[in-house]
């Protein structure tokens, strides 16, 4: 009977300890800085345009082929305010297929895309699968109003 009593004593002792669960919607666990939510494009506020030049590097590197990019000549480059000759015209990212593996961030040589390390990078439930495909403006929105500081790997 000793083993059984030891088990009972164990549960009694655990009852005294503080519960570890957190009330999720009201209390949110603190997110580590390197958290990999769904990727977002970054907005270059000095020049007033996205960093992304539409060079298709991420499109080729993505294992699940969930990125479609279209490039165009940069109108700002003509006026001389921006060094970028090419700029992204349209950028489609299908969050339904994205597996958040961060390979696109690694291959991007303009560091134009970053993983969203805030909570709404994970709270992505939608009613319609089509809403999961986000276009350029939705991708830039958070970075435009400075919503998150992306983590850059050393």
């Amino acid at each position, binding site marked *: 009977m000793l*083993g059984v009593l030891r088990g009972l004593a164990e549960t009694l002792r*655990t009852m005294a300890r503080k519960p570890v669960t957190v009330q999720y919607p009201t209390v949110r666990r603190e997110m580590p800085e390197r958290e990999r939510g769904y990727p977002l494009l970054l907005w270059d506020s000095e020049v007033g345009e996205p960093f992304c030049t539409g060079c298709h590097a991420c499109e080729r590197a993505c294992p699940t082929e969930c990125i479609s990019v279209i490039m165009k000549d940069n109108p700002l480059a003509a006026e001389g305010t921006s060094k970028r000759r090419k700029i992204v015209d349209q950028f489609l990212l299908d969050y339904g297929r994205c597996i958040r593996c961060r390979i696109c961030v690694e291959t991007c040589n303009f560091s134009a895309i970053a993983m969203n390390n805030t909570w709404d990078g994970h709270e992505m439930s939608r009613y319609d699968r089509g809403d999961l495909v986000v276009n350029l403006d939705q991708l830039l929105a958070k970075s435009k109003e400075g919503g998150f500081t992306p983590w850059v*790997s*050393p």
Partner: protein
Amino acid sequence: MATELDRELETLDINVNVGPQHPATHGVFRMVLTVSGEKVVDAVPHIGYMHRGAEKLSEGVDYRQGLIFQDRTEYLAQFNAEMCYCQAIERLGGIEVPERAEYIRVILAELNRITSHYMFAGAFATDLGVYGTAFTYAFREREYIQAIFEAVTGDRMMYGYFRPGGVVWDVTDDFKDRVRWVCKQTRVGIDDIDRLLTKNEVFLTRSLDIGCISKDDAIDYGLSGPMLRASGLQFDLRRDEPYSIYDRFEFEIPTGTRGDVYDRYLVRMEEMRQSARIVEQAIEQMPDGPIMPEKAPRRLRLPPGEIYMRTENPRGEYGIYLVSKGGEKPYRLKIRSACLSNLTALKQMVVGHYVADAVVILGSVDIVLGEVDR
């Protein structure tokens, strides 16, 4: 000639479907038990419900992208699977891995072994009937380690953190203190579950001499890992075929005597303590320095050749048979699944026991369906 009496007493064997949707099958696994009364007469496992063709997909992507398939086949010990994949490529391509990266890999792989065994302890106790208490204990401890993985890699499950040649970026600054704290905390956690289960008479009656496998049968079926060691064969790839830097650490190999369900439970619990020991030694010896070889090629190409790289996963020997014909895509990549081989012995273990034991034996095999079906 069956007498009148026999004909009356002859009972009808009914086929009971355990799974594919069943609380005790740890995923989509179906076992058709032919039961006469409570005794199991025949067990026919059905697998393949989670077959996603990882091997075929691996042939279509280059070496860096191929890593994500390892996380998704072995989704309880991802670091161990990634390590095997990267070691296969490094050995075939002759890529030199810097010291610090080797140490980070070993530390994360061993911590992942502990989380995987915690998952086993929780699920196994729930199979036996403990109403989720051991499960929540195991997950509380697992969460402390999971928090470190999340801080280092950024993800909680599909890490994709190792790369052929090293690791993709360095660990966080407070990594060492957190790992030291976790190792101490894990020992307390293991003792908690130990006190709750190991000497519990009801737990003993349910797991002693259930689902025994002799040493010779275990070898014949190709079992590996805790299943093989529980049957009495002291064989651990980390010590008998050392890969990476495992030969620098001093740890013990727990081996069972009878090869029953209780031995497997004990072997796994002891393995957790040994893994904590390895991590503590590795943390002390971890040097500074680069984490990727300087001249890491952007497009990794391997010379033609083939290699069978095997590592010691929590469930057994996880092997990658990589055939390369030059170029950046593997020509053929076979994933040797420890669980698949461990499952072949299921029928011999289950027949003759009760329905309740069949579920416990299945729990003791500790299967991960992603790895079985690939």
